[in-house]
């Protein structure tokens, strides 16, 4: 039997992603790709994979079929369990046929990546396996019963390992951004208001855009611009003055002024904020943004460190095992 990863359960917004569908923005094609590139790369590098399944706050459960799979998990602080045993939220495990890997929203974070060593054997569309649900490109969002085949399955580790990836550590430091491209559509004190406010991620936030709740930002020169290209992390101020941070599934062009753009090193930290979470911004220079980018990608390039499970997780997992054992005994 060939190897497959069976989706046993999936909340909304569980999608296949690779780095993105690039090169076709000139034809209106959204790149999509992971919301948190740093977490995606931590998982895919540890697993030896070219794509991953992105799990949202709704969680998901997976079973291996056919052969033991090498599975890496990395992202926000999700509650990750292997057959009920609690694991670190970033880990590398062997998923034996019939074993169950579950991910649930945990202490913090909004997105988590499940990468399987080998290849998710799904045909690319326009050069990419990334799902863009709005335009119907790539696989449909995954649902219970889906079972993407795995080609060239990689050797799983003998024991579950923790993945130590410092760039995934949550923190409340301000999200750094560069002002522009249309900061000149706002008066100086409106830009100050934007930078000094404490913002909250709105409920209607998704892979396309994060709504920022806080003071209304007023335009000095109207809210219509001639449509132009949009980078990920651009913060657009539409007519109602409520900012939208444009994320992986953004439209490739837009017609509202963009007051600022989140720097590459902080896009993942922004993506991992959940609806209701607070955040603030800090403007930096191009040089500071590039220095942060250099450090960020150097750490990612070096990869996560595989380590034995930390003691506290072992204690917790023993507890979890006892609880699970208790449930099983009660059923017996």
């Amino acid at each position, binding site marked *: 039997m060939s190897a497959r990863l069976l989706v046993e359960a999936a909340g909304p917004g569980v999608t296949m992603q690779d780095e993105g569908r690039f090169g076709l923005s000139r034809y209106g094609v959204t790149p999509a790709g992971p919301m948190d590139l740093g977490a995606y790369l931590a998982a895919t590098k540890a697993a030896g994979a070219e794509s991953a399944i992105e799990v949202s706050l709704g969680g998901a459960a997976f079973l291996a079929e056919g052969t033991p799979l090498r599975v890496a998990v990395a992202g926000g602080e999700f509650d990750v369990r292997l057959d009920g045993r609690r694991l670190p939220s970033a880990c590398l495990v062997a998923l034996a046929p019939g074993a169950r890997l579950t991910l649930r929203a945990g202490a913090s974070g909004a997105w988590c990546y499940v990468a399987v060593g080998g290849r998710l054997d799904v045909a690319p569309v326009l050069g990419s396996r990334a799902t863009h649900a709005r335009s119907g490109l790539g696989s449909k969002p995954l649902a219970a019963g889906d079972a993407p085949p795995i080609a060239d399955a990689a050797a799983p580790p003998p024991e579950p390992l923790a993945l130590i990836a410092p760039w995934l550590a949550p923190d409340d430091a301000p999200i750094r951004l560069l002002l522009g491209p249309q900061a000149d559509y706002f008066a100086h004190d409106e830009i100050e208001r934007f930078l000094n406010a404490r913002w909250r991620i709105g409920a209607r936030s998704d892979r396309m855009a994060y709504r920022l709740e806080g003071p209304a930002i007023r335009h000095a020169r109207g809210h219509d611009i001639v449509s132009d290209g949009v980078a990920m992390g651009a913060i657009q101020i539409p007519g109602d003055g409520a900012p939208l941070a444009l994320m992986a599934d953004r439209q490739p*062009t837009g017609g509202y002024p963009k007051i600022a753009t989140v720097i590459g090193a902080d896009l993942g930290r922004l993506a991992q904020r959940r609806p209701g979470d607070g955040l603030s911004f800090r403007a930096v220079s191009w040089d500071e943004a590039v220095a942060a980018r250099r450090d960020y990608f150097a750490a990612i390039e070096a990869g996560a460190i595989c380590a034995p499970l930390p003691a506290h997780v072992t204690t917790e997992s023993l507890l979890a095992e006892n609880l699970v054992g208790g449930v099983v005994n009660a059923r017996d």
Partner: protein
Amino acid sequence: MEYVKPRFIDCGEAALSVEFGEGVDPAINARVLTLDARLRAAPPQGLRETTPTYRALLLRYEPLEISRGALVAAVEGLLAPGGIEEKPSRPALRWTIPCCYDPAFAEDIDEAAALLGRAAPSLARLHAGADYRAYMYGFAPGWCYLGGLPQELAIPRRASPRGPTPQGAVLIGGALALIAANPMPTGWYVIGRTPERMFAPRRDPPFLAAPGDAVGFEPIDADTFLALDARAAAGEIVARRDPLQ
């Protein structure tokens, strides 16, 4: 209005917008597309992708491979007189897009005609008689924005969007025309429908008109629409392509 010199505007540290002027104007758009063609013919190390729009070219680049200053210098070199001549991947084309203006297909033509104070057939004649230019794509894959709409057909966009457009909707909004691909809600008016697929992910090529191509419309009746639609569904390109002189 065209700028004397292009503006270079940061969009984060890994994207740079090169803006050539204010407004929607064929001369400004031609400068955008000339720079685009030159960059594609001789891409500087570190340039990842270019996105042409009405008046600006967005350059996505890797700043760990090329500095902003070096990228600006490369662009200025290409824009200078005697800069590298572009070798377009293909010569510009003129597309003749079959379009059915029958109200059964043109869902909003009566509404738009009433707003413009003219009869639907007159709106259709004016729309089909004009010469358009494909300025850019945006919004969704294969949504092709066209300049050249007759002034008499300029129409304010809806205050709130209508429901999803039919496949292949031909629309007007503001001073522009648009050919849509997949169904999406929009604030524009559906004044016709083409059987042509502006985007078909498994066809080669998946997209038809390139920014800078000329576009015209050829009125067709409902029966012709249905016949051409069946051929387009089977993967045939039913629009006419002619070399642009």
